[in-house]
């Protein structure tokens, strides 16, 4: 039992990092649609660089740079060139996927360095809880930090309030002297770097090695989880853990029902549609209305200015 929970936490860690990054980006008003491509290209880069240098940490840094660079292209083309974020994001998705296949061809099947396990000394000795939460490696601990830090930043700090402001009412934020477009650029880059780190976590930690199908569809799943999570870090994290649990469960069911293997790759998608229908249903909205104090957690409204271009009058 505790082994199962332990693997759920580990399986969800990269997804947590990616979804927190995307939540920050979208909360600031920019959509980085390229996640499917960003994850794959950064996973490939991380493996290639780590394999070449022989050091996993360098791989993580390179992957973060790749994710940040793709995000910077989206932010720049939206803010300065006034291009549609979804169009640029979609093109970059396809481009990054092909680029990963093209450049990563020679690394398929190689064995590279990996992130060493690092149980936290005293905490991991706590019965059950220690084994589930504190017997992992740095990637997993980073995912905890990402959840807590994102939540704290959004709802407990002044810059976090500004971040929400530029995503909801950029005109008002600008009128108060907040440099809307500069902040949007850097939040997008930050979010992209986190997506890159998540990509590295797949090829250097969770799944080890590089192949084209390594992160297959996980980028799209991550985008859907951010919507499911209503742009609230804790609810997004809940969605990511739910998906991690499904992954682990499906993996264990494989032995019991061999037929599951065929259905497995597409099973998340009908679920994704149902989950989105659910969070936008009147029923769920009414629950949100009943607990006004938990509006942030239970609301499903996108940041009002998400995907739009802000231009000073």
């Amino acid at each position: 039992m505790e082994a199962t929970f332990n693997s759920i936490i580990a399986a969800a860690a990269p997804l947590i990092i990616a979804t927190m990054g995307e939540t920050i980006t979208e909360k600031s008003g920019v959509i980085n649609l390229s996640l499917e491509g960003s994850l794959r290209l950064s996973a490939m880069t991380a493996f290639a660089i780590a394999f070449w240098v022989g050091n996993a940490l360098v791989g993580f840094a390179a992957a973060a740079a790749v994710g940040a660079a793709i995000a910077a292209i989206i932010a720049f083309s939206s803010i300065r060139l006034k291009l549609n974020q979804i169009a640029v994001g979609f093109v970059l998705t396809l481009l990054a996927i092909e680029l990963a296949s093209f450049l990563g061809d020679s690394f398929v099947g190689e064995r590279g360095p990996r992130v060493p396990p690092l149980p936290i000394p005293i905490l991991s000795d706590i019965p059950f809880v220690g084994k589930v939460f504190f017997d992992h490696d740095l990637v997993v601990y980073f995912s905890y930090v990402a959840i807590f830090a994102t939540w704290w930043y959004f709802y407990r700090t002044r810059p976090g309030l500004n971040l929400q402001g530029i995503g909801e009412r950029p005109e008002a934020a600008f009128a108060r002297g907040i440099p809307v477009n500069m902040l949007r650029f850097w939040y997008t880059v930050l979010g992209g770097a986190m997506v890159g780190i998540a990509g590295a976590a797949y090829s250097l930690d969770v799944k080890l090695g590089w192949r084209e199908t390594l992160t297959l569809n996980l980028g799209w799943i991550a985008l859907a989880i951010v919507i499911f999570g209503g742009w609230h870090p804790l609810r997004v994290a809940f969605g990511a853990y739910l998906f991690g649990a499904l992954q682990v469960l499906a993996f264990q069911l494989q032995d019991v029902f061999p037929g599951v293997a065929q259905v497995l790759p597409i099973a998340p998608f009908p679920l994704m549609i149902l989950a989105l229908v659910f969070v936008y249903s009147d029923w769920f909205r009414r629950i949100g209305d009943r607990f006004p104090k938990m509006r942030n957690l239970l609301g499903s409204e996108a940041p009002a200015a998400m995907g739009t271009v802000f231009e000073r009058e």
Partner: protein
Amino acid sequence: MTRVRAAVPTLVALALALAVGVALLLVVGAPPLETFRLLVEGSFGSASKISATLLAWSPLLLASAGLVVTFAAGLWNIGVEGQVIMGGIAATWVARTVPGPGWVLIPLMVLAGAVGGLLWAVFAGVLKTHGNVHEIFGGLGLDFVAAGLATYLVIGPWKRAGVASTSGTDIFRPEAWMPEFQAFGVGWPVIPVILGLLSVLVVWMLLRGTLFGLRLKAVGSNPYSSFLLGIPTNRYMLGAFAIGGALAGIAGTVQVAAFHHKLVPAISGGYGFLGILVVLLAGFSAVWIAPIALFFVGISVGSTQLDLQLGLDSAFGGVLQGIIVLFVMFGGAWSVRRASGRLTPQEEP
């Protein structure tokens, strides 16, 4: 003169895209000139290769024409891949169950493909209009469901006699093959090409010369105002999904009836997503679809040669297509910005 001027950013963008392509080839140690020669020769080098390129052109034209309609309504029809697949599945079902000669069967397969794609697209549309699920995610989810269904049919109920393999169903009986026209020693895909070009023409006329097209574009540019002016926006969006899906579905019919002559799991050939790139490059208008689509399938068909001849991953074709679209979009936006005199630093960055 202004027309020539307007083409400059596009040409510069193409040249830059080519330069990046060359740089990538040098990075992986491939000979650039030889690579580009193989790309051209692999797609237009002989009668049979031109025929293969035209056969690939047709579904891309159909999918792109359909996407022009959905884009006109302001919709991101990412579900186009799934619509192509469902068209292929529906056409395969007809080929497997309906008896009769080819002149009955082929039109029925085209019709079935259109209905299959239409229903799948309207499904994504209803999720948007009635379930508030953004069409990107509804469509994407349905893409994977359709792909899963195709795989299931190929290895399950429609598996080849005796063996279940992902290589496809049994080959259709000859009546269900779209007839080719023999000339220069090879068969030419005349029917698919006519279907493809016709779809572009119909979409062009629909958006340019009809009240429906005008209203659709109004819905696309400002759904709220259109609604206030009395246009039933939801119905128009669903209409756009229906037309786009039907054309994508016919692309699926072409894939099974003229190319594979059976159902395979990857029946869409990626033409749905490639169509999105084509339409983005064409600036959402039907006018330039045909030449751009030909250019792009040329790259796709030619790049399969790279693997065989140079041992280079054929993904290079996709990389090139992506870079071209990205750079041309940048070039267009940059020239607009410069023309309006606003490319001066206002706010960093």
